[in-house]
């Protein structure tokens, strides 16, 4: 993926201080009248990345994407593509192509003509156009459907035409607007892998907009989480999941248990938090950057909470509760446990054993615990 070969092993290109960003979004804002859709966003995206903009509806990710495409002009700020300022450049002059959410296939043209459209605008000779269209249709496995019109194709086939059409000009940047939203579950999984493969093969830089965090986690080299027009955190899927920088990101990605508490011990190598919600203390084996006595939130992922009938031997990181609800998902089971304080904690456990007569069941009193490296402290 997006890595550079350096003596001593691979490092990710975004951590390489000598790498030059391919796309530089510099303090870009977009206002529609009084409404601020995008607020002071700065972002560096590197060549060959598959970058996802992730957020809920109205967070500004689509507006940001459209500014990259050229359909909206930034109210302030600049956008650089491969060193060139493209903030004012109209879409038909940018080396950027977009795959639309609705595919936007031209209904009165055949598959061939749709895919060839971009090359025709560049005025390439007919023979070369024919050759490249043929190659591209082969890559997306639609060679047999070249003469068909869009309404004669299925949803998945239409998407492949849209993809072929947007890739054939070998753009410096490919933008994808919710590429998997219209597909059913099975097709979605299949297409996710296909997209990653094609991107790897062609080496094109992708920027994908999505509201589906699973999609973002599967596809991306890095994710940019957006909310209310601002970028909250940028990082690899692992970083976003395991090291969220805020309550918002922790709660947006996956499920999480948030424990409110006060810092009672603050050392560079460990931290203790007193939390009324668990009726005890949380001990972390790393330091945090909040002032002592501050109100903090400790985020613990459901799969990192251990559950058992016997009280573990530790003073910290233990709490007590009663099983309120169980959801059997086949591969995992989700337990909702109500603590003495009234707070409900979510726990996922893989169903390791096929027969487990002794499984913990409803209304059982249980003890919950976790490893001292599991919690992440986040501010508001």
């Amino acid at each position: 993926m997006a890595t550079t070969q350096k003596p001593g092993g691979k490092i990710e290109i975004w951590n390489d201080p000598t790498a030059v960003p391919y796309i530089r979004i510099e303090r870009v804002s977009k206002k529609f009248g009084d409404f601020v859709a995008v607020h002071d966003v700065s972002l560096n995206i590197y060549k060959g990345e598959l970058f996802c903009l992730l957020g809920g509806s109205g967070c500004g990710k689509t507006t940001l994407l459209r500014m990259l495409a050229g359909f909206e002009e930034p109210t302030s700020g600049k956008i650089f593509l491969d060193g060139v300022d493209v903030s004012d450049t109209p879409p038909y002059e940018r080396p950027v192509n977009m795959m639309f959410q609705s595919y936007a296939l031209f209904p009165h043209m055949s598959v061939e003509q749709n895919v060839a459209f971009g090359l025709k605008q560049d005025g390439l000779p007919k023979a070369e156009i024919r050759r490249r269209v043929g190659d591209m249709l082969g890559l997306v496995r639609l060679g047999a459907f070249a003469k068909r019109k869009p309404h004669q194709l299925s949803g998945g086939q239409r998407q492949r035409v849209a993809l072929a059409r947007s890739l054939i000009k070998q753009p410096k940047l490919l933008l994808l607007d919710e590429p998997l939203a219209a597909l059913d579950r099975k097709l979605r999984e299949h297409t996710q892998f296909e997209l990653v493969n094609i991107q790897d093969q062609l080496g094109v830089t992708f920027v994908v907009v999505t509201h589906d965090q699973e999609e973002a986690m599967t596809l991306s080299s890095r994710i940019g989480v957006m909310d209310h027009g601002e970028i909250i955190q940028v990082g690899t899927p692992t970083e976003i999941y395991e090291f969220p920088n805020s309550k918002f990101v922790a709660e947006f990605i996956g499920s999480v248990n948030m424990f409110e508490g006060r810092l009672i011990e603050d050392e560079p190598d460990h931290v203790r938090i007193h939390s009324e919600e668990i009726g005890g203390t949380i001990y972390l084996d790393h330091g945090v950057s909040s002032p002592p006595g501050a109100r903090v939130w400790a985020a613990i992922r459901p799969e990192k909470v251990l559950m058992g009938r016997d009280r573990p031997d530790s003073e910290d990181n233990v709490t007590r509760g009663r099983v309120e609800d169980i959801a059997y998902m086949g591969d995992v089971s989700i337990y909702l446990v109500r603590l003495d304080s009234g707070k409900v904690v979510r726990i996922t456990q893989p169903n390791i054993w096929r027969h487990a007569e002794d499984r913990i069941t409803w209304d059982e009193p249980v003890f919950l615990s976790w490893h001292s490296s599991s919690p992440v402290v986040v501010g508001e």
Partner: protein
Amino acid sequence: MSIPAEVQFGSRVRGSLQLFLRFLMPPARWTQSRLKRWGITGRVLVVSVPYLWLLFFFLVPFVIVLKIAFSETQIAMPPYQPVFHWVDDRILQIKLNMANFAFLWRDDLYWKAYLNSIKIAGVSTLLCLLIGYPMAYAIARVRRESRNVLLMMVILPFWTSFLLRVYAWIGILKNNGLVNNFLMWLGVIDRPIVMLQTDFAVYIGIVYSYLPFMILPLYANLEKMDVTLLEAAEDLGCRPWKAFLTITLPLSMPGIVAGSMLVFIPAVGEFVIPALLGGPQTLMIGKVLWTEFFNNRDWPVASAVAIALLLLLVVPIMYLQRSQAQQSAGERT
């Protein structure tokens, strides 16, 4: 998403346009860059062509009508005196003749005609609504396949000549016309009922001619209505008639307004129907304007009549515009 006929046709259109474009391309680029330098982009050209046309051939004429409404008649061609006078080539003297407007006010004929026109147009609109609403409702509730056929049948009379359809009623309503002959044959009456050359005939004429204009907006509105709303009402214990009054009727208000305005506004100034079906007693302002212009050759008075009529209709016209704008804004969300 797409429709095949457009697709087939579109492909052929596209082919011919490609050829057309190939010949236009080289000089077009050059002119474009030139024009861009003067701030004349493609957009400006697209907007300005219809804009200038309408400004010149639609707006300016109204200004002229206004001007002439203020001038005096004269026996000449054109039969009015100029309003602006150059006195000694330096001082511009404006002779505003308010006499025409005063005349409109003083003479019974005019304001009676205005009021009568509003009355006739208003009643006709109401009748159109009473006939058109049930029809639109019925069409909207029929099976989907039959709807297009029925709509086609509503629209078909619209494509045949308006003039000829009004003429048809002469044959039906006259003393030895269809209705009278039929009633006399049945033995219901001895002598023909006078229907032609009366206000009654004008009502029939307007309702008949403008009915499609009422049905179509009503249908468009009713067709989009969510039937599950009525089902929810019935589920909650509401009887069908009540559901109609409290749910369907209020929701179809935009359609009612649109249809009513599309009938009322042109009906006020109608000429053909009162001319052919009405009598000398039938006072409608459109006929009055025509008579002033063609028979009396009094252009200034005719202009004054037109201005007054326009002022009368400004409020309903703006009401219609606003209702349309609100509706399209609502649809876009």
